[in-house]
C-alpha cells in the first residue's frame, strides 16, 4: 500500500485552552527529534490535526511502525491519495480494504465532498464506492452504525483522500510540555516503568544512577545504559548521570548501625540527587518506589528518606502491584533488560535485618558524626554524563 500522508489526532492537548499552541509545537519538535533519521519527513500542523508525510515508501512504513510510542498522540491514520475519478477511487478503495482483515466484518463508506463540482453527490458516491468494494471483496455486510471498517473518503478538487485504519497512539502529553524531573534509575524493574509514566505526562526525564565499583560491575552499568536507550524511544533524549558512589557507601557502612545502613544509603542518594537536580534545573525527583515492596519502602522508611529534602519526590508506582509493574515493563520492552542478574548498589550492602521503621531523629543523629556533604559534593563533581539515544554504531554488522 502506498500511503500519501499520516493524519494525527492529538491526545489530551485538545483540552488545553490558550497554551494549546505550545503543546502542539512541543509535539512537533518531539516528532522531528524522534524521527531525525527520516530525512524526507514533512510535518504540517493544524489546530486539531497534524499531518506527517514522506515521499519515500519505506519511510512511511517506518513512521507507522514507530508512531504508537509517541506521547501526545491520541490516534493516527495512514491516508492514501488518488485522482478524483470514480474509477481510480474504486480501485484505491478495494486496495485499502483488501489489506484489512475484512472477512465477516461490517462495512460503511463515509464520503465528504469539499469539491462540490464533483459529478456525483455524496450519497451517490457512497453507494457507488460501497457496492464496488462489496462486490470486489465478498464477505462483508453493510452497517451504518458502528461498522467494523469505515472507509472515509474526502473529495477535493485536485485529489481524493481515503483512510480506514485508526491506530491508537500512546496518549498522554508531549514530552517536555510538563517540565523536567530527575529519575533515580537502579536497573531494576520499577524505575524504567516510573520513567515511562512520567514521560507519558509530558515530563522530560533525566536519570541518575549510583555506581559502586568494584562492588557493582560494568555489566550492571551497561544494563542501566540499555534501559536509558530503551526509554529514550518514547521521545526526547535522556541524560544519564552516573555517580561514583563507592566512597559514600563505604563511609555509611563504617558510621551507622548495620540495620539502618540501607535507610542511610537511600538518604544519601536522595541528597546527591537533589544536588544534581538543582544543577540541571529539574523540578522534582522521581523514584520507582512502591509501598511495602521492600524494607526501604514502608511509609516510615519513605518518611525517613524523604526528610533530607523539600524537593517534591514523585512516586508514580506507589500503589501498583508488582505484577502490574511487570506487565507494563514487558509492554515497554524494559523487563528483559531489568531482570539480568547483576548486582546493583542496593543489593550489595543489604543488611540481614534492615529496620522497617527507622526514626528520623535517630537517622540524623547517626549521620551527624561524618561529613557526608563533602563526599556528596565530590561524587557529584566526578559524575559521568551519557546521552541517549546513542548514535548507532553497529560493531557486529560486519560479522552478520
Amino acid at each position: 500500500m502506498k500511503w500519501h500522508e499520516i493524519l494525527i489526532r492529538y491526545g489530551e492537548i485538545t483540552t488545553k485552552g490558550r497554551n494549546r499552541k505550545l503543546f502542539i509545537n512541543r509535539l512537533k519538535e518531539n516528532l522531528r527529534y524522534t524521527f531525525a533519521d527520516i530525512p524526507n519527513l514533512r510535518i504540517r500542523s493544524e489546530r486539531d490535526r497534524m499531518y506527517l508525510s514522506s515521499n519515500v515508501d519505506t519511510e512511511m512504513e517506518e513512521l507507522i511502525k514507530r508512531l504508537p510510542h509517541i506521547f501526545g498522540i491520541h490516534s493516527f491514520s495512514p491516508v492514501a491519495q488518488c485522482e478524483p475519478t470514480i474509477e481510480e477511487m474504486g480501485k484505491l478503495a478495494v486496495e485499502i480494504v483488501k489489506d484489512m482483515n475484512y472477512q465477516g466484518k461490517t462495512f460503511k463508506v463515509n464520503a465528504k465532498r469539499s469539491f462540490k463540482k464533483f459529478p456525483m453527490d455524496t450519497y451517490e458516491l457512497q453507494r457507488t464506492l460501497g457496492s464496488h468494494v462489496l462486490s470486489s471483496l465478498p464477505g462483508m455486510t453493510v452497517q451504518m452504525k458502528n461498522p467494523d471498517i469505515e472507509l472515509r473518503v474526502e473529495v477535493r478538487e485536485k485529489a481524493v483522500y481515503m483512510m480506514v485504519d485508526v491506530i491508537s497512539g500512546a496518549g498522554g502529553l508531549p514530552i517536555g510540555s510538563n517540565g523536567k524531573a530527575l529519575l533515580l534509575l537502579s536497573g531494576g524493574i520499577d524505575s524504567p516503568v516510573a520513567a515511562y509514566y512520567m514521560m507519558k505526562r509530558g515530563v522530560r526525564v533525566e536519570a541518575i544512577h549510583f555506581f559502586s565499583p568494584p562492588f557493582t560491575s560494568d555489566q550492571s552499568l551497561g544494563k542501566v545504559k540499555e534501559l536509558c536507550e530503551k526509554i529514550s524511544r518514547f521521545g526526547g533524549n535522556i541524560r544519564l548521570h552516573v555517580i561514583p558512589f563507592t566512597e559514600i557507601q563505604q563511609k555509611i557502612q563504617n558510621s551507622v548501625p548495620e540495620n539502618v545502613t540501607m535507610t542511610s544509603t537511600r538518604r544519601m542518594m536522595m541528597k546527591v540527587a537533589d544536588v544534581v537536580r538543582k544543577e540541571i534545573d529539574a523540578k522534582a525527583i522521581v523514584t520507582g518506589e512502591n509501598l511495602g515492596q521492600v524494607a526501604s519502602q514502608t511509609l516510615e522508611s519513605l518518611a525517613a528518606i524523604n526528610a533530607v529534602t523539600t524537593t517534591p519526590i514523585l512516586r508514580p508506582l506507589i500503589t501498583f502491584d508488582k505484577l502490574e509493574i511487570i506487565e507494563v515493563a514487558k509492554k515497554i520492552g524494559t523487563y528483559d533488560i531489568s531482570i539480568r542478574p547483576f548486582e546493583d548498589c542496593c543489593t550489595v550492602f543489604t543488611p540481614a535485618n534492615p529496620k522497617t521503621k527507622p526514626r528520623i531523629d535517630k537517622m540524623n543523629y547517626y549521620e551527624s558524626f561524618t561529613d557526608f556533604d563533602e563526599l556528596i559534593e565530590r561524587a557529584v563533581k566526578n559524575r559521568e554524563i551519557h546521552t541517549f539515544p546513542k548514535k548507532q554504531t553497529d560493531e557486529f554488522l560486519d560479522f552478520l
Partner: protein
Amino acid sequence: MILKDKMIYLDHSATTKPDPAVLQTFVQVNEHYYANPASLHQMGVESNALLSRAREQIADIINTLPEQIIFTSGGSESNNFAIKGLARANKHRGTKILVSSIEHASVLESAKAMEEEGFTIEYIDVDKNGVILIDDLKKKLTKDTVVVSIMHVNNEIGAIQPVAEIAKIVHQNSRAFYHMDAVQSFGKIPVQFTGEDGPDAITVSGHKINALKGSGFLALRKQMNIQPIIHGGGQEMGFRSGTVAVPQDVALAKAVRLAIEKQSKKAAQFSKWRDELHEFFKQFSYVSTLSSSQGAPHIISCAVQGLKGEILVNAMQHEGIIISTSSACSSKDHSVSHVVKAIQVEPSYEKGVIRMSLGEGITDADIAFFKTAFSKVMHQVKEF
C-alpha cells in the same frame, strides 16, 4: 592425490565449501568473541550480545521469533531433536509418528528409535517422482498422530513435497506437529514458515549453505512443548545444553542471509543447467533420469542401466568431476538406497544411480565440460 582446486565439484548436496566471507566471520568471532556467552563477565556479555544478534537475524529472515530458533550441531541433530523432542513432550496427544518413505536417515532412524518408547511408525508412500501420495497421508493421519515429518526437498532425487497442502491437512485433521526437514531446500527454493500453511518446525543445516560443518538450527513456528534430547546447563533457552558455538552460529547467520539474498538468482541459473542436463541425458538410451523438472533446481539424478554407481563416480572423478551415488550418507553402503526403492526404479537401473548437485562457483563451461566427460565415460563403460 587429486588436485582439489582443479576439480569440478558437483556434490553440493553432500556438503559445500564454506563461503570466504562466512569463514572470515568464523575466524574473527573466534579471535574476538571466544568467551562463553553464558558467562557473567563483560566478555561473556558481549559474546551473548553477538549471539543474540545472529539469532535475531535468522528469526527475521525465516519469519519467527528469536527465542524459537535453537542452534544445534546440524541437520541430524535437529531432526533427532524435532522428532524425539516433540513426540516425548506431547505423548498425551497420541503415539503415532508419520514419516514419508524417502526421508533422510536421521528422520527415519529417529522415528524408529521411538518405537522402543511405545510409539508406532507409519510410512507414507511416494509416486514415481518421489512426491508423497496425499491420499495415503490422509488415510494414515489419525487422531492419535503426534508428529508428522515430511521433508521439503529430497536429497537424492530433488523431489519437492507439497508443503502447504501437507500442513493444511495435518493441521485441519489432527493435533499433530508437522516437522519439515529443510536441509536440502533452504536457500535453494523459498521455504514458507508462516501461518496455517506452514510447518510447525523446520530443520536447517549450515554446511549445506556454505557455512561450517557442525552448525545448524531447528526453528519452531510458535511456542510449543518440546523436550530436550541433550541435557545439561540449560543453554539455548533450556532446549539444547552445551556451550553454544558462537562462531559457528554467527557464521551460520551470515550464510543464511547470503543464501537467501542469492536464492532467486541461483535458482534461475541452476534450473537452466538442470533442464539442459535432463535434455542431454535423453540421447543415451540406457540412462534414465530420476530427477524431474518440477523438482529442486540444484539436484540432478539419473541411473545408468546395468552399472554400479560407484564405477561412474570413479570414472567421472578420473575426468576431474566430483559427483556422488544417490547420497553421500549411503554411498559406502552397497545396498540400493531406500529412496531409489521407494520410487520403484526398474531393477536393472537401481544400482547405477548417480547424483549431480549444483552450488556456488559452477559455470556454464563446467556444465559443458561435464557433458563431454560424461559422454567419454559412457563410451568407455557402455559403448565399447
